[in-house]
């Protein structure tokens, strides 16, 4: 029996289970959080895709960053991300996380989330409507199923890069022990 084959197929099964069951931690930083209740409740009902809310980072697979991030919030976001357990995914929400959005010239709002955390995908819009959110999350499911959502591995591999960027805007960063 080929050991790698077994490992590979087992990983595929886990990926499949992961794509069918995603618990998201919505980090409600900006206005985007208000788009989530309709997405979760009866109008759009994201639970039919196996996506549901999680109460704490320990139980979550998906970190939704729902809006602009001030540097102060970014520090907490990084801490929260590090408390999550692999496999874990980050999705940026709205134009603020992509390029700063309407806060493009604010002195304390970061402009590109993917420089600080390994973002799997962005959902564009200001704010994205529930349809867009669902569309984005379905794409994320596909990515997970195909094993393409490997943000947590990228984070491990490029730890230096991410830490450098984080420390450039935050100074000293407290990390999990």
């Amino acid at each position, binding site marked *: 029996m080929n050991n790698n084959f077994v490992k590979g197929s087992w990983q595929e099964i886990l990926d499949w289970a992961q794509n069918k069951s995603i618990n998201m931690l919505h*980090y409600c930083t900006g206005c985007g959080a208000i788009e989530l209740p309709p997405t979760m409740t009866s109008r759009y009902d994201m639970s039919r895709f196996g996506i549901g809310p999680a109460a*704490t980072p320990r139980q979550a697979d998906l970190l939704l960053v729902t809006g602009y991030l001030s540097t102060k919030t970014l520090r*907490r976001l990084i*801490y929260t991300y590090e408390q999550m357990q692999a496999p874990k995914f980050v999705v940026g929400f709205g134009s603020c996380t992509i390029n700063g959005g309407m806060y493009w010239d604010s002195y304390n709002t970061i402009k590109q989330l993917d420089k600080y955390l390994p973002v799997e995908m962005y959902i564009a819009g200001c704010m994205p409507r529930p349809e867009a959110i669902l569309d984005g999350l379905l794409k994320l499911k596909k990515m997970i199923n195909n094993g393409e959502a490997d943000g947590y591995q990228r984070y491990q591999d490029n730890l230096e890069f991410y830490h450098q960027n984080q420390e450039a805007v935050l100074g000293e960063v407290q990390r*999990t022990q």
Partner: protein
Amino acid sequence: MLTKYIFVPAAAAFAAYILNKKNKKAGATITALVSAYLLLSLALIYGSWELNQSFNLSLMGYQLEFLMALTPLSWLFAVLTSAISLLIAVFSIDSQADFKFSSVFNLNFLLVIGSIMGVLFARDFLTLFIFWELMTWTSFYLISSGKKKMAGRAAYRYLILSAAAAYSFLMAVIFIFQQTGSFAFEPAAEFLLNNSAPQSILLLLAISLPFWVKAGIFPLHVWVKDAHGNAPKEFSPFLSGMLLKVGFYGLIVVFHQLSFFKIIENTIAYRGLPLLSYLFALLGAVTIITGTILAIRQEDMKKLIAYSSISQMGYIIIGIAIATPLGFSGSMLHLMNHLIFKSTIFLALAAVIYRTGTTKMYEVGGLIFRMPLTFAAYLTAIIALAGIPPTNGFISKWVIYQALIEKGYLFLALAAFFGSIASFMYVFKPLSTVFLGQLKPQHQEIKEVPLLMKIPMLILIGVIVLFGVFPGIQMNIISQISGDLGIETVNYSLYSIQGAFGAWNSLYIFNVFAAGFVIALLVFGLAKKSKLVGLLDTYSSGEYVTDAESYHYAYQYYRPFDRLFDNLAAKSLTGFYETLTANLLKSGESFRRIFAAGRVQNYALYSVLLFVILAAVGWII
């Protein structure tokens, strides 16, 4: 020779006092050796129930006879006393290194052991009274030699209760002596049986008062909490484990050997139980409930366990009062088991106090990673206390439940259920706040206790599990006691007990437990290995926590529950009891003038009356 059980500790007491002045460890070592000797020689006389001894003394024309004898009941209590004092003495060899009064402690401790032996072997009232008073006073000195000063009011309360009870005892005994010309138990029992029932009942109630006080039954439990809160940490296990139980010894003697139950047999009954017995059982039920509610409120670990002792005493008195074979066996089992697990708890807490120097639960936390064995001892003991199988605590509670359901005593059962479920709450509080949670920065360097303090805890853990699997060992001596007292015995084997509705079989339980845990372990072991992180790396809504002190949930752990009983607790804390006692004492002078010319039996009556009044106003503290 039964006198040696009294005089060896007494003689050793003074030796310990003198030697301990030279070497701090000598006193406890002597206590340990004496207890070991007592334990060994008691083991040797097991079964020789015909042993007895008597002295004659001529005093002022009266021929006084001091009688001593060995019964299964007194043998059991003597063994328990010497065993627990052995463990405590071994524990305190190390733990008393910095204790200022260790000489006095060992002197008094050995005297207490000796006087308890005297109480247990006494077969006449005079001997009983002498040793009882000796025990009360020496234990009082022991309690007040704690590091904290015993509050004036608490001491006052204890003395009032003990002295009043002792007087009532003495009056009743002298009355009986006038009638029979003897202090011995048998003639007294015969006299009481043939006397008019109300008078006999009154006399026996007067005689039993000191035992009620010692057992800490509601409403006479007011001294227990303060005594525990102030006693030296090494004495608390003995106080709660043994000293309270001596009260039950006295009660059993009064109920069975002085034929109290025979006298009230034909009075008005409720569901086949004489009303007076039912009243006693109800007192036990109230004791359970008040002790439990107040235990949940405590912030001081010793006081919490003290209140828990009060509530567990309720179970024992219920079992003794309903006096069915199951009830009696259950309460004797519970008496033994309570001694075992409560001593374990107190020893574990004593170890914590030894290392941290505080009894407040919110001042410590997270000690499990520093004192794992102490934690294991505490955990095993609380599993037993909460009555969770497969430990000894469950068996005794199970037997008591069976006894209560068998007769359909709904309200007694309700109190028993309440105490049992609520005991989860109060035993979990120290577990969670002292041993689990965040470790305080000032306790980072704490180490596990020394070997000599570990050994007693280890032995007790073993005993809890042993009796949990083989209750037959305990049932063996209990059935002899029941036989001796004329109660039917319960069917049992080494690992099973026959209840009223089905049997308890600890072997099956143990097997099944093993199977369940193996499956769970397999699930755990086959899954991915987990990564160890620190206690401060917890979900804190994204904020980085550095201050362990404020990140520990300990103070007012059950606030929502306490809110339900705030009114009740506030009422009890008003000092109502003290003011009324003081007023009674003031008017005592005028009382004396009016009633002093009365007959002896009137005195007994007054004592009882005083006690009824005290009981009525003695709303829980």
